[in-house]
């Protein structure tokens, strides 16, 4: 057993259950502040993790539950990542509490349970745990996306996510069944031992493709991206933010683990498949984002494009590429959460999140305007922000492989075209903030202290990762050493 390894998960589950219990006794008006309590609790867990949880060495993995659960550098990296994301999302949710008619306590608790799923996902070393953690994440999100019961679009988002999510779950389960049927293994480590023999079995490969397709839904990669814009637009903003960063990162850590721990031999032959998926995802996301007028929908398409960029690192099939994925995700965390926090605050009173609602933001709140501008610049990959160095690492990883396989050069150019296209629509957002003619509402936007801190934190994160990438580059390189 070795239960001590699951310390993050235990603490977060305990926090979530405690929150539900306390919710029973707290009077309604004070319930929104439970979010701060939850965020503080997660801060404590994160600090504990940073100071007391260690991995003996990057190559050594500690196992629990009969090797279903693995604690290694990669897992630990992502656990801290998810904890940080959840803290910012919780602070954002408190600001959103006014729009949720009833049950804000449950909203916070569901975020914590989705977080638990992500924590498990970052340590999954077995198809069973992969499936369970994915389901924990997805089921929590079914409720989170449709939490604004009074709003039609929120319900629509929930239903769409439910249907598509159920479909992807079906794919995953069917794929796992096929893989298990052929190999008789569920554990990633065991599977890696037998892929040399059964790697060419068509049914086995078909099963793997289905599993990857299931994960493709999570990260919103082409051709499984169709849900993303609708769900991003309709869901409550904090849920969208958590979906954008948490669910996507969970999909990526599982993808990395399946491809490079369970079936590294097969992954090595999938270079072309990954190149094509990555290239199309980048182009699809960027091209479809151009005509969007709804900010959340625009970010939905942009998140598809970013899934494509992240897939560059996976497609490179090298340690440098995988480390770049980790780096890029870290930059993406600060960037995308900063953007959604601003949207959450500005659009609190407005129903549609049209770009016009951003007009005059620079006069209403210079901090929010600056944050949104920096977030857009970082998403577009402009130095000295995190997005630039992330894209640089990804491109470098892809070009490094180009000597062996010219397809990688085509991929690098596709990414380049994508970046140029994306400048157009990110620039459009900045333009709406700073120089749009009609600005109806010019009332200042009140900011609570915790939100202010989280915004400053995101800005600092974007700048730090852009200006001092050294420490995180090394950390990411250490973390991916467990992958082959």
């Amino acid at each position, binding site marked *: 057993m070795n239960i001590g390894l699951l310390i993050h998960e235990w603490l977060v589950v305990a926090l979530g259950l405690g929150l539900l219990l306390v919710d029973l006794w707290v009077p309604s008006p004070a319930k929104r502040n439970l979010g701060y309590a939850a965020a503080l609790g997660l801060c404590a867990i994160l600090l504990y993790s940073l100071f007391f949880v260690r991995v003996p060495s990057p190559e050594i993995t500690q196992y629990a539950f009969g090797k279903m659960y693995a604690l290694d550098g990669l897992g630990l990296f992502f656990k801290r990542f998810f904890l940080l994301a959840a803290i910012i999302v919780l602070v954002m949710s408190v600001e959103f509490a006014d729009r949720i008619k009833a049950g804000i306590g449950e909203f916070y608790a569901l975020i914590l349970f989705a977080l638990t799923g992500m924590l498990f996902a970052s340590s999954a070393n077995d198809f069973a745990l992969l499936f369970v953690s994915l389901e924990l994440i997805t089921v929590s999100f079914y409720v989170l996306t449709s939490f604004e019961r009074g709003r039609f679009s929120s319900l629509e988002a929930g239903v769409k996510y439910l249907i598509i999510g159920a479909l992807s779950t079906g794919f995953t389960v069917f794929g796992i069944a096929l893989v298990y049927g052929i190999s008789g293994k569920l554990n990633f480590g065991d599977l890696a031992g037998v892929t040399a023999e059964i790697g060419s079995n068509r049914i086995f490969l078909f099963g793997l493709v289905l599993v990857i397709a299931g994960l493709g839904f999570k990260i919103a990669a082409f051709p499984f991206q169709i849900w993303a814009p609708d769900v991003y637009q309709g869901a409550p903003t904090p849920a969208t933010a958590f979906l954008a960063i948490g669910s996507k990162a969970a999909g990526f850590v599982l993808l990395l683990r399946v491809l490079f721990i369970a079936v590294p031999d097969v992954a090595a032959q999938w270079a072309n498949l990954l190149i094509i998926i990555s290239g199309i995802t980048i182009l699809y996301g960027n091209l479809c984002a151009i005509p969007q007028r709804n900010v959340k929908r625009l970010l939905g398409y942009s998140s598809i494009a970013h899934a494509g960029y992240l897939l560059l690192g996976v497609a490179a099939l090298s340690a440098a590429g995988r480390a770049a994925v980790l780096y890029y995700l870290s930059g993406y965390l600060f960037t995308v959460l900063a953007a959604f926090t601003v949207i959450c605050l500005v659009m609190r009173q407005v129903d549609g999140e049209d770009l016009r609602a951003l007009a005059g933001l620079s006069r209403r709140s210079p901090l929010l305007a600056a944050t949104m501008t920096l977030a857009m*610049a970082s998403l577009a990959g*402009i*130095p*000295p922000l995190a997005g*630039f160095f992330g894209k*640089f690492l990804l*491109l*470098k990883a892809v*070009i*490094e492989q*180009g*000597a062996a396989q010219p397809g990688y*050069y085509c991929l*690098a*150019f596709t990414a*380049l075209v994508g*970046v*140029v296209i994306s*400048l*157009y629509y990110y*620039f459009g957002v*900045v*333009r709406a903030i*700073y*120089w749009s003619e009609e600005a109806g509402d010019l009332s200042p936007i009140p900011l609570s202290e915790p939100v202010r801190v989280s915004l400053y934190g995101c800005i600092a994160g974007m700048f730090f990762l852009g200006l001092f*990438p*050294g420490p995180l*580059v*090394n950390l990411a*390189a250490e973390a991916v050493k467990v992958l082959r």
Partner: protein
Amino acid sequence: MSILTFIICCPLLAALLLAFVPNSFRVVMRGVAVLATLISALLAVLMFLLFNGAQVGATGYRFEQQIAWVSALGISYHVGVDGINVGLILMGAIVAFAAACVSWEIKEREKEFYILLLVMAGGILGAFASLDLFFFYFFHELALVPTFIMIGVWGRGERKNYATFQITLYLSLGALLALVGLIALYVQSGANTFDIPALTRHIFTEQHALSPGAQHFIFPLLLFGFGILVSLWPFHTWAPLGYGSAPTATAMLHAGVLKKFGLYGLIRIALPLLPNEAQGWMPVLAWLCLGNLVYCGWVAMRQKDFNWLIGYSSVAHMGFIFLGIASLTLIGITGAVLVMIAHGFLAALMFGLGGYIFQQTGTLRIDELGGLLRRMPFIGMALMMAAFAGCGLPGFANFAGEITVLFGAWTVFPQVTILACWGALIIGAVYALRAVRNILHGPLPDKWAAVADAPHLWRKLPFVILLASLLIFGCFPGLLTEKIKPNAEQIVKMVQAGGRNAPGGALVTQAAAKEDAR
């Protein structure tokens, strides 16, 4: 701490400082911006005077400083100067000061404007001082992005929004192509370092030249990536519209200094590190540069707006620099660097004067203006001198540079040089003198009776400094050429050593032999 670090950091720190100044302190903002760029410019002058020739050898750089940044990837903050960039940094710092001086015309959102201006200045100086491929690109992007925002917010004209998008997308594409080329260069060299001196050592001293296949695709990436940034024909269409819509200071800094980044990249990186392909592509470049010199000059003649005219003429002048680079001779490359510096001062002067006239009259349509010399003797005289410099009158730095380029190119591309002479001397003179005649001479329309000359020394200062620089380097080009020559020679040697066995290399070796024979 190297003096270069101070030159780069001074504007950047000032930008940071301005971020904390309240919006109402307008004088403070202006003062900080002017002071910071002045300090930078003075330090650059000091550096230029202290620079006593690069040491010959693999790292012949002065005022070097190196700090490891991401050691896992071989990226370090590494600055230093040799003969090629010492003049460019001096020019950049002086133009930045002039640009800060003319920014009094900005009346709204001054804080943001000055912050962006200072970031742009710091980025430009950093790009020219960097000896690390990553920072070279990083600083350039840092300077490029403020350009877009400044055109978008403070730009003028009806097509401002279109111009903003066009220049953003076009230049980003160029910059990204160059980035891919630079990364590919890093990857293919196998040296695991972005450091330019280390790469040079790796490729030349240790004989690890890049494989012909790798050079074959990296060089066009760099050539066209940098070419888009420098408005190489036929990728020049962003320039006139962009400059026509940009606020004065932005146009001065971009056309004068930032645009030279691509040329500097070609000379510093693409030629010496990819010698085989460089030799193969140079004839193509020589013919393309005729597009700049002749075609864009021709188009400039037909312009009705003065800013568009300067925009096209600045595109046309890039042709000389490309021609000098394409010749791959010592004289040609020395001349190219000289024209880069001279044109930096000239373009800044032209756009500064155009901006002043626009500020006074509210229009730059050439047929609406006229007789302005009577109302503004100082500005008019300065404009006339700038026009003379533009058509290559001896005594101005442009003449020294252009004639050197033409001498250098004659031995290699005689036909191109003949056409270039026509393009430069005849067409250039026609549009410059026509503009002077229509704007400054003739009857003064009544509506311009109230326009005023630059009232006091403070307003005149930027133009005086730029003109003085043009005249000093025009009368004493040796100040620059003596510094440029040893390093240009080194680059020519590297290209020839690398390309001797290559198929495209025969041409230049012949030319060099011819030159030796003379």
